[in-house]
């Protein structure tokens, strides 16, 4: 019985990892850039939501889209100002750039007087609701995470499967110059992708905020999203979510069954096992250069 409880909270946590992983798989699929800034974007999203609700006094259901929109614009702006000029540089440099973006975001938030260094509560209408399913107590905060993740995943799946945007993104990621020649507005596309990824990160932040509270170091959870993406297979959108859930569950069960300390590194042990057994992840594709 307690296992079920633990597993469910693991699933909820895993959905958060999955959402963050979804963000950088999106960016990776479109631009083959790995962004280490997703965790910090999530943190900014949470703060943004908080600002909307507490600062501007917006009702909750209005604050969500407002925060998502604000973050989407920030994502688009980041791509325009910082990422676009450096495309074409080796992947390693761009990764360092995104790490820098993360540092800047974290630094700026920490610098805000009175708020930056505090841990703040995020008021949500469903905060205290609990569901009782045959003895298993599920917090509404966790249920909302799972439901929202599922809904968002479905939306994105439809977007990529049935729209030209999805195909265009994949083309641009494989050979930028050829994509240009085919008339694909690569730069505009990249901006869109970053905006979308930032919005997804914002959702993750808004979902996580009631559970862990809002603070400047929230972004470090984003590091666990990388194992999620690898397990799912970098480049696979459903894989990101599935990978996240797997990591979340393994982590929760490790904390429950194994001695102290294993919970923190469970995710990393899983990813190493994955790289040994199935380097391309569960849903990843194996590509080989033809010489």
């Amino acid at each position, binding site marked *: 019985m307690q296992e079920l409880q633990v597993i469910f909270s693991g699933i909820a946590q895993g959905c958060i990892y999955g959402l963050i992983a979804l963000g950088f798989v999106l960016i990776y699929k479109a*631009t083959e850039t790995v962004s280490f800034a997703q965790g910090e974007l999530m943190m900014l999203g949470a703060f943004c939501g908080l600002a909307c609700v507490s600062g501007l006094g917006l009702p909750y259901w209005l604050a969500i889209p407002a925060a998502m929109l604000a973050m989407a614009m920030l994502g688009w702006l980041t791509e325009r100002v910082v990422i676009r000029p450096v495309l074409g540089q080796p992947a390693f440099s761009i990764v360092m750039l995104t790490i820098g973006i993360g540092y800047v975001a974290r630094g700026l938030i920490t610098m805000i007087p009175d708020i930056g260094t505090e841990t703040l509560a995020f008021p949500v209408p469903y905060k205290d609701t609990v569901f009782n399913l045959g003895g298993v107590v599920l917090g509404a905060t966790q249920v909302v995470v799972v439901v929202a993740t599922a809904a968002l995943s479905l939306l994105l799946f439809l977007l990529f499967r049935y729209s030209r945007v999805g195909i265009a993104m994949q083309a641009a990621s494989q050979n*930028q110059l050829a994509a240009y020649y085919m008339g694909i507005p690569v730069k505009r596309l990249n901006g869109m992708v970053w905006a979308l990824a930032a919005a997804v990160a914002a959702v993750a932040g808004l979902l996580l905020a009631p559970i862990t509270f809002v603070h400047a170091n929230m972004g470090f959870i984003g590091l666990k999203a990388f194992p999620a993406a*690898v397990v799912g297979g970098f480049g696979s959108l459903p894989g990101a979510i599935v990978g996240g859930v797997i990591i979340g569950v393994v982590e929760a069960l490790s904390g429950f069954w194994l001695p102290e300390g294993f919970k923190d590194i469970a995710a990393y042990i899983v990813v*190493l096992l994955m790289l040994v057994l199935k380097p391309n992840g569960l849903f990843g594709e194996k590509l080989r250069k033809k*010489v």
Partner: protein
Amino acid sequence: MRFIFKTDYDQDIRLFKHSGQVFWYGLLLVFLVVAPWLIEEYWLAQMTFVMIYGVVGLGLMVLAGYTGLFSMGHAAFLGVGAYTEAVLAAKGWPFPVSLAMAAGLSAAVGAVVGLPALRVKGIYLGIATLSFGFIVEEGLARWERVTGGNAGMHVKAVDLFGLDTSSNEGFYGVCLVVTVLSTLAVINLLRSPTGRAFVAIRDSEISAQSMGIHLARYKTLSFMISAALAGVGGALYAHKLQFISPDQFNILQSVDLLLLVVIGGLGSIHGAFLGAIFLITMPQLISLGKDYLPAFIGQAPGLQGLVYGLVLIAFVMFEPMGLYGRWLKIRTWIQLFPFYRKGMFKRQKSFQKSDRLK
């Protein structure tokens, strides 16, 4: 303006390409040797740190800059070296032996961490090394019997055949010798077949293989060398701080090391040391600058992170060749004055090609 007229293959092989280099590096060496008598203690301590981070940076430079292997958990090797040294020093082992052990153990861990490199590339390798970093950090914290766990561990002074090196100057001397030897070793390696093999692996694995380079062997070797150097740096680090704890070897330390190589200039020996100088002086500069900024910026706790992030972004955007690259441009400008042309170092604009098909 200097023209190097080559008459002998030796000129391309030997350490110093021309007399000017001999002069300047000789001067540098002389300055470093007499520094304890010229500079006050605080700055001497900073220079010691620069050397320690320089050695670690050398290791990461060989791995990431010359072999093209992404290591995001490098602090793990620093930690292994530091703790090995601390434990052995506490047991009374002489310094040269304990240093060798620290290097050796780090190299062994490096070989293990390098195993994923034989199968995966690029970002996957980065995440694998990141994972190892977390696991090693946790391991150091949990293995309380040996490492003292999260409470940390005190480190005795260096025991060098009975010589007293507990003073600032003495320890500076030890670091100087280790740094010079490490740098020479790495330079020698890079101008030999092994160094060329590393560069080959970085640029095209498939043709490196067809040239007879055993990929697995050389990748593992690169990891081991890199880890060994980090281990040596870690050992010196332990003695300098005199107190170590697992949280000093976390992801932030690993990112600091990556910052070091990127800002220093990927793919150059000078870059390792320039990056180390940057890493050590940046906090000082921020502290100095704080007084000139309005209070709400200057006294804010997040300022250091913000500045680091901005500098990193600025370097990747405007100076991808790092500090060393900027120095090369300045030197060329001086040498060619007034004939320096703006686009001399400009690489052809490259469009992104899929990394998955390398």
